Structures are given as C-alpha cells and as structure tokens.
C-alpha cells in the first residue's frame, strides 16, 4: 500500500488528470466558451477559492479524498488568469490558494519515505478544508430550503375589534426620526461608494407632488407646475424637481413640435 502510494504520488504530474471511459479528459474546461457577460456572472458567483476548487472537483466527479493536484492546480490557474483578464476584482484569498496548491504540487513530486504515514499526504489539509467548507455550503442550502417567515410561513392577522381595547402603537418623537436619519447617513457615508448628496427637502416634496399629479392626469401641461405666486424660489424648486424626476426616469416630457406646449407624463 505504501509503496503503491509513493509510486502514485511521484507519478502524479505525468498522469493525465483523469480517464473517463478510456479517454483522457482535456485540461481546458469545455464550458469556458461562453459569452463574456455570462462568464463574468459565472465567475462572480464563486464565494471564494474553496468554492471554485469544489466546483472544479465536483464537475468531474472526482473523489474529494483523491484530488489529482497537478490537474486541478492547472485548471484553477486558468480560472485565475481568466478572472484577471476580465478585470474581476480578485480577492487576495485566491492568490493565497494558488500558492498553497503550488506548494502541495511540489511536495507531491518529492519521493516520501516508505515508512511515512498516510497522514503526511500533502493534500490532507486541503482536503479537510474543502470538506469542511462543503459541509457548510450544503448546510446553508438546507437552511435556505426550510420553510420560513415572509416566504412559506405567514402569520395570521386576525383583527381585534375596536371596543375598549386600545392596542397601543409605538410612540415616536421627531428626535427619534432625526437621529435615525443621522445614523443611517453617517453609516452610509462610511462606505465611500454611497454618497448621499444633500438635496433640499423641498425638492423631494415637490417631486412627490409632481408624481401625484401626473398619475391622476394623463398629460399635464409643463407650465402648470409653476405657480408664480410661489415666487422665484418656488419656481426653481419645481424646475429642479422635474429635472430630478427626469434623471431618475420617473417622468418624461412630451412636445409634439418645436414651441408647442410641453407636457409631463408618467414614464411608461
């Protein structure tokens, strides 16, 4: 057994990585010839290097306890290069794994003393980690499949007649509301990508008013949104609100010919 094992290990790098019905399996994954967009989605779907390795192993029905390291390393590196080419943000963990695979591969090439125990299989730690990850990957899927609230399970909502029972509703002060807003904005600003621009609230309010009016009427004359009685500021606010709604693709402006009246309608 030991002799056979050593023999096998030292020959590993020369071996075709697998024989399926007598045919050597090619190293280049056939399924790589897919449109770049789909490929991007595919590659981004991996939760990390362990997930990618598991995919490579599962795809070929290899027993996880006997991973052909040389072949798997080669395939792994192909994916890494692909991710680099597609300029995917490559987490450092992928490179750490690449180094680990290279190290295991080189140790597999070294003849090991015959007396060595199986425990010294250079792949042992990797195999343990892969199995452990697989275990929780599966557990996560099982958990996701359980019946749960908001999806399969709905609570009953049986009314309580309004007699003398006054079901109290939580009380909220304006301070509570403001500090909630401050907190959420402060937190969002910690992430540079979410920059909340400060927009005068009146514009937001006007946006809602515009939306309400155009949902009630099919076409609304553009000028109807400007009430001179509101003064210059009011007109500016309406104008900015309409621009903002246009930018967010919530409304569109329609004009049949130059200088004809402009109408505002809901985007459909």
């Amino acid at each position, binding site marked *: 057994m030991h002799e056979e094992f050593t023999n096998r290990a030292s020959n590993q790098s020369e071996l075709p990585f697998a024989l399926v019905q007598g045919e050597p399996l090619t190293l280049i994954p056939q399924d790589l010839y897919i449109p770049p967009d789909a490929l991007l989605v595919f590659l981004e779907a991996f939760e990390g290097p362990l997930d990618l390795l598991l995919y490579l192993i599962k795809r070929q029905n290899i027993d996880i306890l006997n991973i052909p390291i040389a072949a798997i390393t080669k395939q792994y590196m192909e994916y890494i290069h692909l991710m680099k080419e597609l300029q995917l943000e490559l987490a450092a963990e992928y490179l750490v794994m690449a180094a680990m695979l290279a190290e295991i591969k080189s140790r597999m090439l070294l003849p090991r003393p015959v007396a060595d125990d199986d425990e010294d299989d250079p792949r042992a730690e990797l195999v343990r980690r892969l199995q452990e990850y697989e275990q929780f990957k599966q557990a996560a899927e099982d958990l996701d499949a359980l019946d749960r609230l908001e999806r399969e399970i709905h609570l*009953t909502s049986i009314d309580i007649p309004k007699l003398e029972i006054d079901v109290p509703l939580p009380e909220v002060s304006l301070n509570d509301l403001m500090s909630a807003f401050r907190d959420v904005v402060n*937190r969002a600003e910690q992430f540079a990508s979410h920059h909340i621009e400060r927009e005068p609230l009146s514009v937001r309010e006007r946006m809602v008013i515009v939306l309400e009016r155009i949902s009630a009427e099919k076409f609304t004359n553009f000028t109807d949104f400007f009430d001179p009685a509101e003064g210059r500021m009011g007109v500016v606010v309406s104008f900015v609100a309409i621009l903002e709604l246009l930018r967010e693709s919530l409304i569109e402006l329609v004009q049949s010919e130059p200088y004809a009246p402009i109408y505002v309608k809901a985007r459909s």
Partner: protein
Amino acid sequence: MDQSKLQAILEALLAASDKPLSVNQLQELFTGDIDLPGKDEIRQAIAELQQKYTGGGFELKQVASGFRLQVRAEFESWVARLWEQKPPRYSRALMETLALIAYRQPITRGEIEEIRGVSLSTNIIRTLQERDWVRPLGHKEVPGRPTLYGTTREFLDYFNLKSLNELPTLSEIRDIDQYNPEFEFNDEPEVVAS
C-alpha cells in the same frame, strides 16, 4: 376544486389578510388556477366557516368592505392584557427606514436597502403602511418596476409638521448634535402627541 380544499384556502386567505376581503376579491385571488371557484361556492364556504367558528375565540364577521376574522369581543379582557406590560417600541431598522422614506422620497425598497447596507424585512414597510405614515406613490420604471414610497399627510400630522420642509436638514441635525450631544433641542422641546 373540492369544497373542503376551497374552505381551507379561504380560511388561509382570511387569516393572513390584514384587511377585510370581499367575495370578489377572494375570487380574484384564484385567478390563473385551473378550477376557478364560483362566487356562490365562495359564499357557501364562508357560511360553513362561520358555522365552524361558533364557540371559538374568533369569528368571521362581515363588515362594509368584506369579510374578516376577528377576535370575539367577549374575550377582550384577556386580550387586553397582552399589551399591559410593556409599551411597544419600533426597531432601529424601522426608524431608519421611515427616516429614509421621509427624507429621500420617492424611494424604492431596493434604494433603502442599498443605503442601509442591509436587506429589509417585508413587514417593516407593511407596518409603516398600516400606521398610515407611508404609502406607495407609483412604480419606478426600471426592471422589476419597484414600488416608490413616500410619506403621508398623517405622518406630517403625527410629527406636528406643516410640510416636509419643516424637517430639519442633515446639516442642521449635525449642528444640533455638536451643541447638544444628547440630541435634544435647545429652544422648544418637540412634544409629540400620540
């Protein structure tokens, strides 16, 4: 559809709905099913359900806008005790959602999730709608047509505001913060009537 299955589905719908459901509305909820129940079948099943609840803790009542399940009035003294102990409070997630809707309306659920960095449970928006503080304004014309939310007249009334303009701006909130770390207003304490 056999009558006992129809009855069970109707019971499920009436129990889950937070609003009364009319026979028409109930029938519409079967749209697309192979065997659409007739209105008479639905009425028949409702009558049977009403029968079934006799002597129980709740009843199936007909009100102006339809049928609803409600707790029997005779048990109200026990039911009232459910809320005697602790005054209910809203979660931080709900308060932040309300603040974002107030300050950033019209806004979609996805946008709220993006700003907060966490996904939002469905019952938060439902609670805010039940409280009449938040309402759907329409749909955003992007894939998925997500609902846009805004605040209501009742929201302004509750917070004693004449318009959204009276909500302090972010920089004002931060100014107040600086002067007063406990976040209380100097001039007039906003006492909010419940």
